[in-house]
């Protein structure tokens, strides 16, 4: 493609220039955005690509024969291929389903693969660190169909306990596992888990919402059967996500939602579903959002995912060091101690200050962190907390951001002392 060769290190100062919110200030404080795990910012080039599409090329896709519509369709389908290539999809034009977000992707698997293959008494294995997006769809299906849910436990270092994996997946039909925890940062050994799951005859639904934006991803190496992720966490827009699925599996699935685009024919007494991937895309898809996602993955490719990852390891290691040096026992940091075993997400709790209050005070200093259960209530119960504070990084964050976080934490401690 047209991208220059990927850099090996990130020039954060240059990267940052493309993010308007981060170069601004609020009430005299620079904006220290440390909530990219919830949603990233988007660079000017992504916004420009979307605007340019709107101004020169917009029409509905897969419908018109006039050139504007044809061009819109081609750019939309090119975005599909680009999104697929970004995660190493072997057949990107057929294996990438555009959804509205990662959550819908997992629900799509539950509604199609799940409804076809899961019945009373069948077991689904999840981990205790799953985001609600990879829990609630299975709880709903379990309630409807009488499934058994089993849980891979999390140890005190925030790692999955895999000693018993053989037994846990024995007889199971599906394993749902996040590639990276949005609370602990933990990077899970997907390839190992997939191998065990496949040996037991189970399919693997991987939640890539956190990993795909931050870690080089190759679905073949991960070994999973489905992978869901969201554009808005990877420098792309809201309103679009991706479900990647192995071609043989997708090809066999019934449709999900019904409407235009997903059919070949409709009669009063029935319909003929379309080929994959359109079979799963009912109605007008997120077109300009696909254009934005395409620009985002091109940008990430240009930065180089290896460089993005190296940068985040550096930043995470730095943050772990600064926080424990400056706050010692006052702060409990959840998740693996080694930055290499985790992505750029750090959850912590303060001995005396509730995360909600912490976040409120930090905000007065322009520091944006998340406080709450992070849509991972089963994990919160496992950790014995109702909420944590969480700082998370994007390719635009640097050491100065971490220092401002630590300074603001010190102010909060002073205020609540």
């Amino acid at each position, binding site marked *: 493609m047209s991208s220059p060769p990927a850099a090996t290190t990130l020039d954060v100062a240059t990267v940052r220039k493309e993010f308007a919110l981060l170069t601004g200030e609020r*009430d005299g404080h620079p904006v220290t955005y440390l909530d990219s795990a919830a949603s990233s910012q988007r660079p000017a080039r992504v916004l420009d690509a979307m605007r340019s599409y709107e101004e020169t090329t917009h029409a509905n896709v897969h419908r018109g024969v006039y050139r504007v519509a044809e061009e819109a369709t081609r750019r939309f389908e090119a975005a599909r291929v680009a999104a697929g290539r970004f995660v190493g999809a072997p057949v990107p034009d057929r294996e990438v389903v555009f959804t509205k977000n990662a959550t819908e992707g997992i629900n799509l698997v539950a509604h199609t693969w799940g409804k076809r293959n899961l019945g009373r008494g069948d077991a689904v294995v999840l981990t205790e660190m799953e985001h609600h997006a990879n829990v609630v769809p299975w709880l709903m299906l379990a309630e409807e169909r009488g499934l058994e849910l089993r849980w891979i436990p999390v140890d005190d270092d925030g790692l999955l306990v895999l000693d018993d994996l053989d037994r846990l997946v024995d007889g199971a039909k599906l394993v749902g596992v996040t590639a990276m925890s949005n609370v602990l940062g933990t990077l899970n050994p997907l390839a190992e888990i997939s191998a065990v799951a496949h040996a037991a005859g189970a399919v693997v639904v991987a939640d890539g919402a956190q990993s795909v934006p931050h870690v080089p991803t190759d679905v073949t190496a991960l070994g999973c059967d489905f992978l869901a992720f969201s554009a808005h966490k990877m420098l792309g827009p809201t309103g679009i996500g991706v479900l990647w699925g192995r071609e043989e599996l997708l090809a066999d699935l019934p449709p999900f939602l019904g409407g235009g685009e997903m059919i070949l024919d409709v009669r009063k007494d029935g319909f003929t579903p379309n080929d994959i991937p359109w079979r799963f895309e009912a109605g007008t898809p997120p077109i300009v959002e696909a254009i934005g996602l395409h620009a985002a993955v091109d940008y990430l490719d240009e930065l180089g995912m290896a460089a993005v990852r190296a940068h985040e390891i550096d930043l995470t290691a730095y943050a772990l060091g600064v926080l424990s040096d400056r706050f010692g026992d006052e702060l409990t940091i959840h998740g693996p101690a080694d930055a290499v075993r985790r992505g750029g997400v750090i959850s912590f709790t303060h001995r005396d200050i*509730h995360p*909600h*209050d912490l976040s409120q005070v930090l905000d*007065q200093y322009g520091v944006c962190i998340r406080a*709450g259960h992070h849509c991972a209530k089963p994990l919160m119960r496992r950790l014995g907390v*109702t909420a944590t504070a969480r700082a998370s990084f994007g390719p635009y964050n640097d050491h100065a951001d971490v220092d401002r976080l630590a300074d603001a934490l010190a102010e909060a401690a002073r205020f609540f002392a």
Partner: protein
Amino acid sequence: MAGLEDLYREIILDHYRSPRNRGELPSPPAHRVEGFNPLCGDEIVVSLQVEGDVLTDIKIGGSGCSISQSSASLMSAAVKGKPVEEVRELIGTFKAMMSIHEATLPRDSDGDEVDPSLDATPVDVDALGELAALQGVVKFPVRIKCATLSWNTLAQGLDEVGAG
């Protein structure tokens, strides 16, 4: 910009550090009701004992931020031993104090706030006593749900026991 002092008044921090009426009542005879704030994970458990027309006892469990906890503590002190009717009135007054901002304010699409005073109902803040300390919360709209969590939970509890 509203300062932290508007939010974290002394009384609030005091009730946060030393919550009143902490615990649970044996249920039955007491009634137990849970409230969640899905935004931040705060949980409140209100145990209430209604005898005749009177809320004779109340205890607060659960955990959360300084605002939700202090609001619950202040509430428990204010309603314990009061006639149910008075409690309902107080719930109304407290929620009115918070309500200007509890519903999303209408805005035009530039994000400019439409004058909130249009919707404001006059609130008898004096009637709230110590509770008035929570008034500063309305300047931090996202925390209003923290402040009202225990009150909504109590109201639900009263409904469930068919009181008042």
